[in-house]
Structure formats: C-alpha cells, structure tokens
C-alpha cells in the first residue's frame, strides 16, 4: 500500500445521496482477475452514454473540475462488498473521499487501499459543495497527521475521526496482512484451545 501524504487539492463534487457500489462500478465490469484498470469504468453508467461516448453532463467529464478529492452526498458506498469499488475510485486518481456518511464495508475497503474516507458534518459538506460551485478550482487541505480537513475559501476546518490503528497503517503504508502474519503463534495457540 502507498503511504498517505498531506493533500492540497481542488475537489470533484458528486452531490448525490446513496451512491451505491453498483453505480461506482457496475457488476459487468467485475470480470477481471487482476487489480488494475478499474478507474476506466468508475461511475460507468453515469459517465458514458449508451453508445460509449462520454456523457458531457456528468461531472467527471467536465474539464472545469479536477483534483484528488471526491466530495459525495450522504451514504456513499452502500451495497456490495466488491472491493473493486474502492479500486476504481483509487485507480481514477482520488486519494480522499468526503461524505457525511459512509457504508461500513466500503469504508473498510477504501482504508485497506490507501484511500482516506472523511466523514464530515452535513453543514461542512454543504459548505464544500457551495465552495466548489462558486469556484471549481477552490482548494482543500487534508492532513491525516492532525486529522483535519480545511476549506481554504471559507476558512473552515473540521477535525475528523479515524481509528488510530488505521491512521498508522495509512501514514506508514503498512497493511494488515503483515501484522496478521506476525501473530502466527498466537493464532495457532488459539486454534488449540
């Protein structure tokens, strides 16, 4: 897993609620046996028209918007456990997803892939959407060390929650398997009980 660094970036807005994993990546694109290229099909059915040409109305096709932060409506990532959803978001180039609420499995999956989910209060989220609407190149700062996200235009800041263990993993680029392997003896002892 890549280490998570401080981020200063503009953000891409997706002010839709209950975006489920089938929208993030539809099932018909889950047929690969390798973990790559999923970013091409991120939000596939919103991003492309039936004839596979880009849908100009969809935000990812609008050159006004760019950045490594995705800002999404409430209850992002509900539905399936497919980690392909996390891979697609990461592979597209996002490093942070901001929403006022995340589905559990999705949250766990993104954390295991070096992508930071930041849960913010409803008004902070609305503030972010408003800022981006006014100025698509407005920037936001994310510092995992101090657990803060800052809206530079409004000068507002929010201190977000993250499990201390997961924070350590992200900052150092460690993954859980290294840790579990170091516990082999305890696991075997547990099995004998």
């Amino acid at each position, binding site marked *: 897993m890549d280490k998570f660094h401080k981020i200063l970036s503009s953000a891409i807005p997706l002010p839709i609620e209950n975006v489920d994993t089938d929208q993030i990546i539809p099932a018909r694109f889950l047929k690969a046996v390798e973990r790559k290229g999923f970013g091409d099909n991120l939000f596939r059915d919103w991003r492309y028209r039936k004839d596979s040409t880009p849908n100009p109305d969809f935000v990812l096709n609008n050159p006004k918007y760019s950045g490594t932060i995705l800002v999404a409506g409430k209850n992002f990532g509900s539905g399936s456990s497919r980690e392909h959803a996390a891979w697609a978001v990461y592979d597209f180039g996002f490093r942070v997803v901001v929403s006022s609420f995340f589905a559990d499995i999705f949250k766990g999956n993104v954390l*295991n892939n070096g992508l930071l989910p930041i849960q913010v209060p409803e008004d902070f989220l609305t503030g972010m959407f408003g800022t981006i609407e006014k100025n698509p190149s407005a920037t936001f700062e994310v510092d995992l060390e101090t657990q803060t996200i800052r809206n530079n235009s409004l000068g507002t800041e929010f201190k977000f929650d993250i499990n201390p263990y997961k924070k350590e993993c992200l900052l150092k680029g460690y993954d859980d398997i290294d840790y579990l392997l170091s516990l082999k003896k305890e696991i075997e002892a547990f099995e004998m009980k």
Partner: protein
Amino acid sequence: MEPTTLFDKIWDAHVVNKIEGGPSVLYIDRHFIHEVTSPVAFSGLESRGLTVFRPQNTVATPDHNVPTIEQHLPIREELSRKQVETLTTNCERHKIPMYGLSHKWHGIVHIIGPELGITQPGMTIVCGDSHTSTHGAFGAIAFGIGTSEVEMVFASQCILQPKPKKMRINVEGKLGKNVTSKDIALYVIAKITTSGGTGHFVEFAGSAIRSLSMEARMTLCNMSIECGARGGMIAPDETTFAYLKGREEAPKGAAWDQKVAEWKKLKTDENAVFDTEYTFDAADISPMITYGTNPGMGVGVEGSIPTGDDLTGSDRATFLKSLDYMGFKPGEKLKGKKIDYVFIGSCTNGRIEDFRLFANYIKGKKKASWVTAWIVPGSKQVEQQIREEGLVEIMESAGFALRQPGCSACLAMNDDKIPEGKYAVSTSNRNFEGRQGPGARTMLASPLMAAAAAVSGMISDPRE
C-alpha cells in the same frame, strides 16, 4: 456476570488478540469464496510467497458469472469463463474444496453452505460477498468482506475487525396470510432506511421470528445487510437443529448431542443491553413491493408511492431521480401496473420453500403471455428437490421453465439481463440502478408477489 448478547458471546469467543485503540483480531471458522472476489486475493497471497493457511476451512463455488442454461457446455463469454477457470486452478493449487459447475453440490455460495451443514451455530463465517449475512440465520456471526480481507483470511484465518454496535429488531405477533419473511425484511428496511443499521450487527427476535422456518430466517438475515448493518442473526433453536441434523457436514452421533448442548447456550441473556432496539408488530406488515432504486423504497402492495412532499433539498432530488429512473410518478398506485419480467431465485429467495410457494400459487393458472419469467434454483440440490416434488410439471403446465443454478439476474453478470426500461418483479435483494442490466427497472418482492405478478402480468396482491 454481566448479561451479554448472543453476538457478544460468539464474538468474544473468537478474539485472538485486540489492538489497543484499534480493531480485534478475529478468528474465522469458515471462509466461503467465489470467482469474482477471490482472484486478486490469491495473486496477492502468492506474490507474498504464501499458501492458504487453513484450506480445509475454506469452501469454493463459482456462482456469480455462470450461465443458467446448458451448464454442461464451456462458458461462452470469455471473461466469465476465465474467472471460473482461475478459481478452479487457484483451488487446486491451494487444496481448497470446490463445488464446480458439474458437481452435485454446486450452487450459490450462501445456499450451499447451509444446505451442506457447513454453516453451524456459534461460528464466525466470512465471504467476499455482502450477503454472507444469510448464514446468521443459524446463530452465527457471518458477514461480507472485501478482497483485501479475503487475502487476510487466506494468509492467517483471521481478519482485523472493529467490534460493531448491537441492534435488536423484535417482530412480535402473527404474520398475515401470504405475508413472508421477505416482506418483513422489506418492511423493516423501509422503516429504518438503508443506512439505519450502519455500524451495527442485528439480532432478530420476537415471536414472529421464532415461528419462521430456517429458509425464511435465511431470507431475513440475507436482507439485513440492506439496512446498512454488518449482518443479522437469529438465536439457534429446535428449528435450527432439526434443519441441520443429518446434513453432510453436520456433526454425527455423540458429537451431535454434545454440539446441540453447546448451541442451546447461544442466546442473548435477559437484561442484556443493545445500542439500538426496535419493535414491530407482524400484523402491520403487508406483502411488500419496492418502487425505487434502493431496497428501503418499498410499500405495502395496497399502498401508493410517497409524494415526497415532505422531502427537501438533496433528499428530494435523490427521490425524484430515483422515480424518474423507474418511470414512476410521486403518489402513484402500484397495483395494476404492467410488468415485463419475473425473476425467482438468488441467495435471498432461491431455496426449496420459495419454489414451493411459487408453484403452489401458480398451480392451475397460466403465465401472462407478455411476461418473461426466469425461474432459477439456488443450487443443484434445490433443483433436484424441485424435480422430485413434481414442481417442474406444475410450472411447465403454467408456462414456466426451470433454469440451472447460479446468481443469474440478481446481478446480471451472466446473460440473464433485464432489457433497458423493462419492469421486473424480482425476488432478489437489490434494486439499484442497472443492477439487473443497464436501464433495468427492478421491483423487489417475495416469491408470492412474483407469482401473482407472473400470472396476472401486473403488480397484484397475492392475498386476493
């Protein structure tokens, strides 16, 4: 001793280690795998130079991609074939038992686990699939995991998990005629919303739940994930033991008696505290149908789509977007709406009891001429039983054909896709945009609702 919940008892008995301020290391008793979420985990494992730590605690079956006709032929679609082949070679290399397409025990992963007695009370069970919650019906902690976690279980038979909060949902009283556990599920999700259970593990309790068969309990626990919960469970009882007894992998002889004695202790103590608790009256539940694009958008069949007048801002926009996709208007009645497709199957409603309900309803009636129906058993054993009980003849004389087992139109990774704009009454679990094919319009319901729709060609009340 402090009173504890069923969930606590099983969880605490499986904690190998706890990280200070972090997740627990949870030991996993059974790991189910399928072709879609395992290949990357296998290659990750191999790139670390590891093999599967406890292959005998792992069971594999290809289900998501497989065709539901002519399963004896090689899979035509190349990518699907490759995923299934990859699963086969990975299982051979790592000595994992696999029930492939030609095997008499083949089927959807959440159908075959219970059917073979692999799923047992008190276990921890995971699978790279959110509907792993199904197995909770046996009084097990069962939940879906991502591919990174699949790799963790391969490597160590453990995963790191924060302990979820606990919720109890009580359903008391008697269910009305032709109201099923699928209706309980859709009713509860409509009440508490698709995020109401987030962060929680649910225990279903109450007299209405106790009276359910194992098949019906599985349907309910299967859908628990759709309210956002990590999983759902029901304390084991005589119904559970009777279902398990004599199954392939269930304990036998003296071991059986000993296990049953242990399983009887698996229940929530009186006065145990839940973080959240709900109580519903079974008599309030009608046969349910969804009208929108998440499983929480459901109403009783006699009801109407909400007007959405009480919604504001993004909530209202989301609601209208969903109705627009479905081709419905706020406040409309659903009964009498013409439909095009019916799908009976999936890990939610692909068990023998579901096909009995369906066959019983359609007996002596005829399928509406404009309806296409896909009747897909959840496993080879279910298919076999459908044949033995003479349900195929009933279906055939009503104009329905039986297909072969797999996930099929539940997520439309194979050829069973609902065409764009068409309405499907489906016994599966998700009505997300495009779930059953690009542009498909899914309405979730019980097998009885599906039967009534298949025969009348429109949304109908199975009580009439």
